[in-house]
């Protein structure tokens, strides 16, 4: 279509454009990534480094360079409240992980059974996710209140000895928090699971039916193992929420009764601002970070660093 190239072209390399230097290749992408790079380096890395560095100081109300070595950590790990916080987080985290997954998956599986009113059910299970933890905490604090909540109602039906008062018992309070946490978080996990289920090859179901494998068994032995990546996604999302657990506890129990429902994030906040012992707060948050990194780095490496896309 175009005319033949001009006749007087002597050699090939005359118009050759040199290989562009490395730094300038993909320049626009690099420019566009500046916010991400800044956030990653300055805010997350820088902020973290700053925090870790100050955890070795005797900072009080204001950050100060008064180096005290591992003093803050020693005190941290000898603090009863911190130990209880960690224990609570472990209990809550473990239960929350397992139960959120279980509930989320069960709901998704139920909804995936081609039922009527799927939209309505889905909305009902999902709406708590739209509410803040503060709201969730308040609502459940109230429902679990023995004087006018569930216990009171059941008693008013005539079952006088009925007792359901998780929030005022140090042994059970964390499970009271768990009830609210599950209520809020499982809907979102359900959506993720549902999306995952919808992605499963229809033929697998048919194959299982022809093989005579029951629905439950198909889920357990075939579908769930196939959804590994979905579970990993859900796991990461839930886990990141668990570590940050703070608002819910503050709104629902404020750490009480006593210190029996304290959690690490709350410890951090209280020591940073109320006790005005930044060093202690930073030491606690460094411990939290450390555990996050131990769990996460291998995962992130596998997920993002290792394999390359075509």
């Amino acid at each position, binding site marked *: 279509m175009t005319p033949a190239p001009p006749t007087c072209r002597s050699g090939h390399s005359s118009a050759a454009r040199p290989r562009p230097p490395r730094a300038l290749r993909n320049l626009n992408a690099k420019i566009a990534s500046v916010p991400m790079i800044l956030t990653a380096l300055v805010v997350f890395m820088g902020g973290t480094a700053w925090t870790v560095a100050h955890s070795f100081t005797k900072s009080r109300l204001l950050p100060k360079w008064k180096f005290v070595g591992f003093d803050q950590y020693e005190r941290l790990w000898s603090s009863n409240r911190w130990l209880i916080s960690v224990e609570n987080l472990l209990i809550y985290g473990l239960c929350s992980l397992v139960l959120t997954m279980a509930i989320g998956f069960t709901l998704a599986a139920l909804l995936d059974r081609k039922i009527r009113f799927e939209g309505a059910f889905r909305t009902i299970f999902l709406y708590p996710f739209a509410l803040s933890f503060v709201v969730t905490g308040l609502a459940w604090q109230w429902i679990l209140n023995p004087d006018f909540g569930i216990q009171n109602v059941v008693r008013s039906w005539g079952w006088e000895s009925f007792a359901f008062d998780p929030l005022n018992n140090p042994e059970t309070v964390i499970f009271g928090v768990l009830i609210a946490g599950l209520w809020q978080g499982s809907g979102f996990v359900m959506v993720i699971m549902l999306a995952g289920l919808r992605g499963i*090859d229809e*033929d697998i179901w048919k194959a299982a039916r*022809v093989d*005579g494998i029951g629905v439950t068994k198909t889920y357990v032995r075939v579908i769930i193992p196939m959804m590994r990546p979905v579970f990993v996604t859900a796991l990461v999302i839930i886990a990141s929420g668990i570590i940050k657990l703070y608002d819910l506890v503050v709104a629902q129990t404020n750490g009480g009764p006593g210190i029996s429902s304290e959690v690490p994030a709350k410890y951090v906040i209280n020591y940073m601002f109320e006790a005005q012992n930044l060093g202690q707060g930073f030491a606690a948050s460094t411990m939290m970070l450390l555990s996050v990194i131990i769990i996460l780095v291998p995962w992130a490496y596998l997920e993002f660093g290792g394999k390359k896309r075509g």
Partner: protein
Amino acid sequence: MTLMTHSVEIRDLDLHFGELQVLHQLNLDIEQGEFLVLLGSSGCGKSTLLNCIAGLLDISDGQIFIQGQNVTWAEPSERGIGMVFQSYALYPQMTVERNLSFGLKNARLPKPEIAKRVARAAEVLQIEPLLKRKPAALSGGQRQRVAIGRTLVRDVDVFLFDEPLSNLDAKLRADLRVELKRLHQQLANTMIYVTHDQVEAMTLADRIAIMKGGRIMQLSSPDEIYNRPQNLYVAGFIGSPAMNLIEGVLIDGVFHAGSLALPMQRYDYRNGPHHGAAVIGIRPEHILTGEQITRADATAEVLVDLVEGLGSDTLVYATHGAQNLRLRMDGASRVSAGDRLRIGFDTARASLFDPNTEARL
């Protein structure tokens, strides 16, 4: 009815998806050990029919018998059928061995029996070295074999295949086609096979059912389908390049179309001679050229428009007046666009159709 039953019988099968009727009063008898291929263009209801037979879809009306048992309401696993899917639907997290044995374990067969059957299937399909691998570590062809193996171990009467080769590349497809054919000769089970690949259908089938819009258009042997299509749809559908279809009129046993006049004396009419409007169908390879032209009942000269050399054959697109003609010639032929070519018609191998009913004359 005799005591001798068909392997699969389908009676007056109807299937709706909501408003949409996908299968219409469909009847089909399949013999013991027969290899039946369901062929049709996309969306004609092939998979739907197969799923009805398997019990994976609840039918709207009609009955289904397998080995003489009414299985209309039976569960898929109780029908004595096995199914191989297009995507194979292997359980990805289980080894090949577990894939094969999973159904049996579920049916609570004794361990030694399971081991025996798995070993047997692995032997038949030559997948013994793969037993410990997971599906992800298998090639397409190997996966396909495992999928068949999963059906094999269950000792079923009827094998159902839904386009089991269409995900593979051409070479592998050709190889596996041959293997499948051998397997059928060895096992002699009834097999129902869905495809939209004509080559597969022609090579594999004992009988082919050509479907269109939820109805069976013709159910015959591949040879019959190819050489004696029962209606225009089948005629146009089967064969690549497609049959040349020329509209004209049949007067006193001679077919006239434009300047063409083909004496149809040697034509084998279905219901005796016919007069009036007709469509003649002639396959590209039944248009004779070169020395063979002596065998022709009539000849004509055409203008070559385009030539495609396939190596083994040469396809020639030519025109005769306003009429486009496709010819298949020998791979060694040296024709090129613009040439004028003398061709001959072998009317005995042609087909005639009524343009109104579209049925074969």
